[in-house]
């Protein structure tokens, strides 16, 4: 059973993405296959060079980079949203593959979770 965890909100403004990331980490901890998708405004999680110390928050860029160590299978990024937010896939902070969000894309996963 392969789960897709979706992050579709901006980093730092709220805690949804962090708590979604925790879900991905726990699936990985129990060796359940899990993929992370950054959709819509969520692609800004992948913007390189974040420095959140003036907000007294941890850098989601750094937290996220632990994903592959913990066994998250893949990071995917919404192709249209990358363009919208002027991000090119070769400049992202993590290696994430561009994805077209078609109905068939979602059907590859047994479960899709977004907070």
């Amino acid at each position: 059973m392969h789960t897709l965890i979706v992050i579709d909100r901006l980093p730092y403004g709220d805690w949804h993405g962090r708590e979604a990331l925790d879900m991905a980490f726990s699936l990985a901890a129990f060796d359940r296959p899990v993929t992370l998708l950054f959709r819509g405004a969520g692609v800004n999680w992948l913007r390189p060079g974040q420095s959140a110390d003036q907000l007294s928050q941890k850098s989601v860029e750094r937290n996220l980079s632990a994903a592959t160590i913990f066994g998250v299978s893949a990071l995917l990024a919404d192709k249209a949203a990358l363009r919208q937010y002027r991000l090119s896939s070769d400049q992202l902070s993590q290696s994430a593959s561009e994805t077209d969000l078609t109905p068939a894309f979602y059907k590859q996963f047994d479960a899709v979770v977004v907070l």
Partner: protein
Amino acid sequence: MAMPVPQRNNEGFLENADEWSPSVAINIAAESEILLTGKHWEIIELLRQFYKQYEISPPSNRLFVKAVKEQLGEIKGNSIYLMQLFPGTPAKTACRIAGLPRPTNCL
């Protein structure tokens, strides 16, 4: 004997991570009757490096084992090896000695 003992919480974790030093680690370990060897220091260094790089400690014991496995291979990245070095819950014991925050018990 002058033992550096910075302020710690009720479970023995440092209140202020900046006060950590190798001699602090030796003393915290001694409380649990652990004599730190090169094998221990290898894991302590790995954990501290991990925290510096990712700004989190491994959020569960399972992920602690995975993180060690990822970097040092299967012989060290398994729960029996880590349990022998850091008895109890290895992630918790090792984080305490390495001066990292108390894990949330999330998993």
